[in-house]
């Protein structure tokens, strides 16, 4: 049973999770059957997915570590502002670092199948955001703890919520906009609800991390040959490809928004530098928080940066 929060026809379920599951079903000659439950059909909110996996309610989940703040502190390193430029390379780096030091820490209770990030984050908002000052008082949805701190640092009002809650919140005016990559806007039709989009040159203002994870007991209970089939479909190559596919889906959605007459703005280098300076305290605060829970944040961040550089991300 694979449980996740987006509708079945959305990009990630249809183009990343389904092919992955189909491949496993085919390679195992039907001995593994993966039932897919989209849109939180088995109940709960997206933030409940991790507990559902650990309790064996479901066998596989796809989720954002950011939906359960405080639970996966190390993976937050990849969500720090202005760090990532390319999703494929960053996804490869994420897998590398996760395998080396998160499988036994953050993710010790689950069997990780894939780790990736989405394409560059974009500010989608009801009113135009052209300068840092335009953020003041803007109520924006944040996908994780780090991005919520980032938004507050930039002067906006941050509301933490999962993607499925975004359209309702936009329709009701709970938020004026959202931080999202272009690709995700298609699954919630965000470009029809707000008409201004702000992009950043070079490194993304943020990216969010994803995990595809399996219940450890369920995985270890499989015979070795079936485990090998799952392993072959998962891991570094799968993660990198997921990041590449997801970033690749950004451009068509962007083009669609432009064609619909929405205003898409790319900030200048000079303006982006001001944002970067305003975002600096988020990194400092994260380092302090990591120190408080006994994690060497500076060392981890240095290794993340090195891995990102090694993969051209």
């Amino acid at each position, binding site marked *: 049973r694979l449980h996740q929060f987006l*509708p*079945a*026809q959305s990009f990630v379920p249809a183009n990343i999770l389904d092919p992955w599951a189909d491949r496993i079903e085919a390679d195992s000659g039907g001995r593994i059957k993966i039932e897919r*439950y*989209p*849109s939180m*059909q*088995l*109940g*709960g*909110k997206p*933030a*409940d997915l991790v*507990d*559902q996996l650990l*309790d*064996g*309610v479901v066998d596989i989940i796809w989720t954002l570590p950011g939906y359960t703040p405080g639970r996966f502190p190390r993976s937050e390193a990849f969500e720090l502002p202005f760090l990532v430029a390319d999703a494929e390379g960053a996804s490869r780096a994420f897998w590398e670092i996760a395998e080396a030091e998160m499988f036994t820490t953050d993710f010790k209770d689950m069997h990780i199948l894939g780790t990736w990030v989405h394409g560059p984050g974009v500010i989608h908002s009801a009113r135009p955001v052209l300068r840092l000052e335009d953020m003041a008082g803007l109520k924006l949805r944040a996908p994780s703890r780090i991005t919520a701190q980032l938004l507050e640092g930039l002067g906006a009002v941050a509301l933490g919520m999962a993607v499925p809650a975004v*359209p*309702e919140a936009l*329709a*009701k*005016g*709970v938020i004026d906009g959202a931080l999202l990559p272009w690709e995700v806007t298609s*699954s*919630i*039709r965000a470009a*029809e*609800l707000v008409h201004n989009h702000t992009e950043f040159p070079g490194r993304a203002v943020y990216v969010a991390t994803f995990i595809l994870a399996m219940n450890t007991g369920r995985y270890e209970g499989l015979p070795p040959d079936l485990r090998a089939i799952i392993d072959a479909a998962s891991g570094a190559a799968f993660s990198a490809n997921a990041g590449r596919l997801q970033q690749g889906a950004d451009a068509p959605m962007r083009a669609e928004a432009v064609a619909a007459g929405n205003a898409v703005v790319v900030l200048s280098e000079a303006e982006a530098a001001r944002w970067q300076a305003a975002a600096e305290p988020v990194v400092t605060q994260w380092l302090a928080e990591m120190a408080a829970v006994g994690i060497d944040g500076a060392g981890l961040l240095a290794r993340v940066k090195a891995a990102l550089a090694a993969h051209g991300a």
Partner: protein
Amino acid sequence: MSTLALGFASFPLLLALIFARAPIGLAMFAVGAAGLTLATGSPAMVLARLKTESFSTFSSYSLAVIPMFLLMGQFATRGGMSRALFRAAGAWVGHWRGGLAMASVAASAGFGAICGSSLATAATMGQVALPELKRAGYTGGFSVATLAAGGTLGILIPPSVVLVIYAILTETNIARLFLAALLPGLLAAAGYGVVIALYVRRHPEAAGAPQPRGGRGRATLALWPVAAIFALVVGGIWGGWFTPTEGAAVGAAGTGLVAWAGGGLGRAGLVEALLETARASAMIFFILLGAALYNGFLAFARVPQELSAFVVGLGLGPFAVLGLILVFYLALGCVMDSLSMILLTIPIFWPLVAGLDFGLAGADTAVWFGVLVLIVVEVGLVTPPVGMNLFVICALDRETPASAAYGPVLWFVASDLARVLLLVAFPGIVLFLL
């Protein structure tokens, strides 16, 4: 028994429990829990889900409107504001037999449009309007039927959250859907007006005697504090100044202050208002929790998928398939709330419907089907013998059993069904504004 058979068997079982006087929420809770236990062969899944689900069902910003609006209703009633409202409405339309009932339908529609939840609308209106309608001489059953039906109108009037969700699931343009729903929504309101007029003609005893005209100025003037608060709440939400939750909080605070200033809300009154809010809120949220568990079971048993496969297997024509789907929604409406129904079934039924030829363009089919589904989903909430809106309103009034509302509510259901047939026969009514 296979999981699927369990899924289908759960439905009559649930009805049997409800008819045997089980609390609705408990019946859904028990059938959902038992079904999941039997289907998985152990209680582990139910136990694990309950660890987080009761909390996460209740811990919701949007559902916070329910206790807040209920509190506002309590304050408005205790401060004499609902009475002032109805006195003014009576002065304007009371000389017309059934006039007050029509005004209540209009108020429900307006309130439902901003609040976004038919359950919360039914509960609030049930608290504010039910005592006043009865005071004006309307029978309990007819009042309940009117308010329950009125509560279903809001879903078609933008901003409608359920429409937004439907748009996302079917990849339909939201603005076009809002536009398309407008005319059917007005048609529904007009239909209810006709129903009320006909019903009170046939059953003059159901509505109070017509009130004498006059005193309009004075009654309207006495209304200004309520009018100001309602204008602030409704205008604020419409104008995007605040969210429904913020509107509910402002409304509760405003009515509370006015009631207190008018001497209608002392210490004892406040305690009573809070206790009454507690009873009604707990009742509604317990139903929501039971529904969450039962819906999870239906999804687990893959009932919609199998039903869809079964319908395809019959090889029927497009309109017969559409008819079957609409009937299915009517039945499901007995036990589920509108949003869960849409989330659970549209991803399965929409591809099925999209593959049929109704002589419409693909995008138009999505809009048309969406409006039809939204209507029948809401009708399901009021059809006897099981309808969530009916139960919620009746539970607020101990003197009126749900059965008293069955007769009159059928009149409203008849008008709904007539409207559905009309829209099926003439899709142009939905599409012509586009």
